[in-house]
């Protein structure tokens, strides 16, 4: 049986969801025999494999032009897309900048009093979007893993269900934000 291809992406988030993914303990051993982890911050591979993947987990909100490009590519190249954690599902903490003009944000954080003098290297750093958005506001999403971060048990339950060809049963406490 060929391995199930899984990608994980990291947008505007703190990496806590990926930490929680690595926190699924012995399930990792089971997954190792069944999945191929493709492009992911864990493998440091940057591009989707040819032919796409079965599942992509997206941590973080859509906050800059690179995220916007990648989220659309992820949708095209994944059979199943999962919003992975509160930032991807709701915008969470990154979304709190919404309502502040991005010019002012850049000026306040990277402007006067810092070594950059407000000049950002936009040739390598993507522009911020004017509004941080949850993933499903940009592309359709199949499943939502709640939590900041999602508990390891919920992540394991969802992935194992998908490997069995079943719908993940996300109910009750599984849907707790925060």
């Amino acid at each position, binding site marked *: 049986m060929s391995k199930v291809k899984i990608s994980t992406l990291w947008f505007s988030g703190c990496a806590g969801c990926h930490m929680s993914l690595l926190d699924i303990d012995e399930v990792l051993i089971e997954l190792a025999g069944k999945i191929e982890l493709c492009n992911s911050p864990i493998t440091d591979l940057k591009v989707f494999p040819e032919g796409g993947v079965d599942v992509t987990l997206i941590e973080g909100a859509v906050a800059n032009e690179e995220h916007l490009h990648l989220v659309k590519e992820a949708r095209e190249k994944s059979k199943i897309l999962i919003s992975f954690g509160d930032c991807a599902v709701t*915008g*969470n903490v990154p979304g709190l900048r919404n309502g502040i003009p991005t010019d002012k944000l850049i000026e306040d954080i990277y402007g006067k009093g810092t070594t950059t003098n407000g000049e950002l290297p936009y040739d390598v750093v993507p522009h911020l979007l004017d509004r941080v958005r949850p993933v499903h506001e940009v592309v359709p999403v199949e499943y939502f893993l709640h939590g900041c971060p999602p508990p390891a048990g919920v992540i394991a339950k969802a992935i194992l269900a998908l490997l069995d060809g079943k719908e993940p049963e996300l109910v009750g406490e599984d849907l707790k934000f925060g």
Partner: protein
Amino acid sequence: METITLTIDGRTITAAPGQSILEVAEANGIRIPTLCHLEGLSDVGACRLCIVEVAGQLVPSCTTQAVDGADIKTQTDTIKVHRRMILELLFAEGNHVCSFCASSGGCELQDLACELEMHSVTVPYSYPRNRIDATHPWFLIDRDRCVLCGRCVRTCAEVEGAHTWGFAERGSSARVITDLAADWGEAESCTSCGKCVEVCPTGAIVLKGASNAEMRKDSDLVARLTERRDHE
């Protein structure tokens, strides 16, 4: 004693006249989700989460009287769709970010997202930017976490008798205010009893200094106080 007979979700139930549908359902172990309702306070039907179907109409069960012969349904697909949309709108209207909220883990809104299986909010979030009022020495209000249930307003008026809390403005500008929109710390009518903190279902009104997930409310306080008062 005069009684009435009605049907809830196909069950035949006997009740006393004058009871609300919600009271009858709760007395018979039938769960209806609520948010603005609080035992011990008057009911106002503000949040609409307790809607039920009576003769094809959606009505709030807290403010609708149970009448003889009524056929009430509490869990139809129509009700579920409407309850979830109401909940999504509540989330979208504020900044209900659980990850750094004092009330996380003890929040009625957070619990409702689980109960009503709200996987995502399908309308755009509005990201309001209200100023946090931390002028009171012990308590603060983050209006971006307020769901306008009015439990603070009713508790302050009906139980404490101070009438400090009230509503101002309408629609998406509506907010709860202290005195005539004075800073809470300057509100002379406030007795600093703290009951509004205990009854607030979210992290809108909290104790100062409570960090993430540290705030736990005692919302049964009002029921205990009013019960004792009735027996005086």
